[in-house]
């Protein structure tokens, strides 16, 4: 039986439809909740979020449904009962993550925890639920702390995630694909096949020249072009932005080189950011409004688009234990 954990319960992979595999309902660094400059009323949060999800659902009608994978880790403002209400009211499947965006987003309690404890935390959130919401995580987030070097705590989280993934069958996605060799070593030591790992943000502007694509692809890993839309052409682009054309050509190159099964794409947009201003105008719907038209313009056919946004993510998100 193929199943994927969403915040409202397991669904068959065939029900996922069009998948945005790396998004955020709202992301904030731990501690940002103390700074009133970012606070929003519940009304404002729903007002900023619901129309984006409804539009995503409308755009996705032809695909039979849609799924929003939220990449917000523990301590980053992850808010599962809110996601449950959003999903129930908009019809968008929402997959929540366990894990951490990186060691530098793990608060002290977790920063001091052992691999075994972290694994139990992840497994509990996948099999029992997150907090008292009953919503189960469908994926594990791990990542590299700021500075582009894997730190000891980052790797402790990677190892715990690998063990939890093997035990529960959920996949892993990473924040950043830089300094990947230590991560590859951990996954190899733990025996996790690399097709269960999506190495994310391989496309961002600041990572270029620092991602060992050959090792990731050669080992069977998946590569995330998941910051589509953070374009340097924006009026006020973030520091990780990249020229639109350059990112697109990078993506097309991997497709043309025969790596179609290993690529996934997303926008990493915040519906309603929690602890930062966000990037005005950038939403999950960039995928439909800019990226897919760009791909069609470049001669990418519908079957390939289907592979990237429907089949590949369904295969990736399906609980898989060997």
């Amino acid at each position, binding site marked *: 039986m193929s199943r994927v954990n969403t915040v409202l319960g397991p669904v068959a992979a065939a029900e996922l439809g069009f998948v945005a595999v790396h998004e955020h309902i709202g992301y904030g660094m731990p501690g940002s909740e103390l700074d009133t400059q970012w606070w929003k009323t519940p009304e404002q949060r729903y007002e900023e979020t619901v129309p984006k999800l409804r539009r995503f659902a409308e755009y996705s009608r032809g695909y039979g449904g849609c799924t929003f994978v939220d990449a917000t880790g523990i301590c980053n403002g992850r808010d599962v009962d809110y996601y449950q209400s959003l999903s129930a009211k908009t019809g968008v499947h929402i997959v929540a993550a366990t894990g951490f965006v990186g060691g530098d987003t793990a*608060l002290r309690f*977790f920063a001091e925890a052992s691999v075994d404890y972290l694994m139990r935390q992840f497994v509990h959130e996948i099999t029992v639920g997150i907090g008292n919401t009953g919503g189960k995580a469908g994926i594990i987030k791990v990542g590299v702390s700021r500075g582009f070097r894997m730190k000891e705590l980052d790797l402790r989280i990677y190892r715990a995630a690998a063990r939890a993934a093997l035990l529960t069958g959920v996949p892993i996605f990473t924040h950043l694909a830089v300094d990947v060799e230590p991560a590859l070593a951990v996954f190899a030591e733990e025996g996790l096949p690399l097709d269960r790992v999506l190495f994310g943000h391989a496309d961002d502007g600041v990572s270029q020249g620092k991602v060992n694509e050959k090792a990731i692809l050669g080992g069977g890993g998946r590569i995330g072009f998941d910051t589509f839309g953070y374009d340097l052409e924006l009026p006020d682009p973030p520091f*990780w932005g990249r020229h639109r054309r350059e990112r697109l050509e990078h993506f097309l190159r991997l497709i043309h080189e025969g790596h179609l099964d290993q690529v996934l794409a997303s926008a990493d947009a915040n519906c309603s950011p929690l602890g930062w201003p966000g990037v005005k105008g950038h939403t999950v719907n960039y995928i439909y409004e800019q990226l897919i038209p760009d791909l069609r313009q470049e001669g990418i056919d519908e079957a390939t688009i289907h592979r990237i946004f429907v089949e590949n993510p369904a295969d990736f998100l399906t609980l898989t234990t060997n």
Partner: protein
Amino acid sequence: MKVTSPTVNTVLGPVPADDLGVVSVHEALLSVVPGAEHAYDITLDRAEIFEILAKKLTDFRNAGGQTIVDSTGMFHGRDLRLYEALSRSTGVHIVASTGMGPEENLGGYFLTPQTNPPTPWPAERFADLFGKEVTEGMVVPRVERRGAAGLVATTATRGGMTPTDESLFRGAARAALATGVPVSIRYGVDAVTELQLVLDEGLPADRVVVGDLDRTEAVAAGWPTAVAERGAFVAVDHVGRNDDDAFIRDAERAALVAELVAAGQVDRVLLSSNAVGVAKGHPAYELPYAHVQTAFAPLLASHGVADGDIQQILVANPRALLTVR
């Protein structure tokens, strides 16, 4: 001419300083290691937490205690609505604190912000964050502001102050200077040097309490006397802890207090226990909040400290510290 009587900020609003009575300045009500609220195996049963704390506060009150200062800052389990309800139902004044520290207790928002490069927060931003918790009210994260903080509390890293610890100390001092509430510092490796950091910001020494001065190394180094001579408050604040070589024992604490009194520093001494009402994510430390009054005050008397001096230490000194200027 309008005469305003001096007040202290409690979770239920300003109260006349003369109403504080016996005060314990360095205690914890609900203490949660940052992040532990998300742990799969930790539950935060609010009704149960209330019941435990209400019992402990009532015992404190029955032993003559009237005011508890929760000195854990803004990011270690502080729960303002809980504390308000506890204060209303037990009659104990509760002073809550703003501030954070040491660095390892901070969230990534302050240490690796989403800027390039990820420069940690400087003192000025901490000063603004803490100051607004006094002038605009303490935060219930992402929900609302409540009453004014009565203290800015921060702590240095035990292995030595980090640059962010220094920003926290300076920011705390600036917030205190701007708002009139006092500062509490718990030192990392050198009480006197670290005290100097907050004094360098222009904060008068009598607006500062230095905690942890009953650590064995602090007493050996003579820091209690040195801190008192600089005019700051000396917190002998692990009263009741007698099983840890990192701290002196109660008999030595009594001797230390007697020594400070004999040296004419009675108005610089504060006593507290660092008891933890409810601990989440770290080991419990079960000690009645009233331990100072019930067990240690008699011990002080037996060391020859006069009743008037004991009253000064328990009532007048914390009142002077906590009164908003």
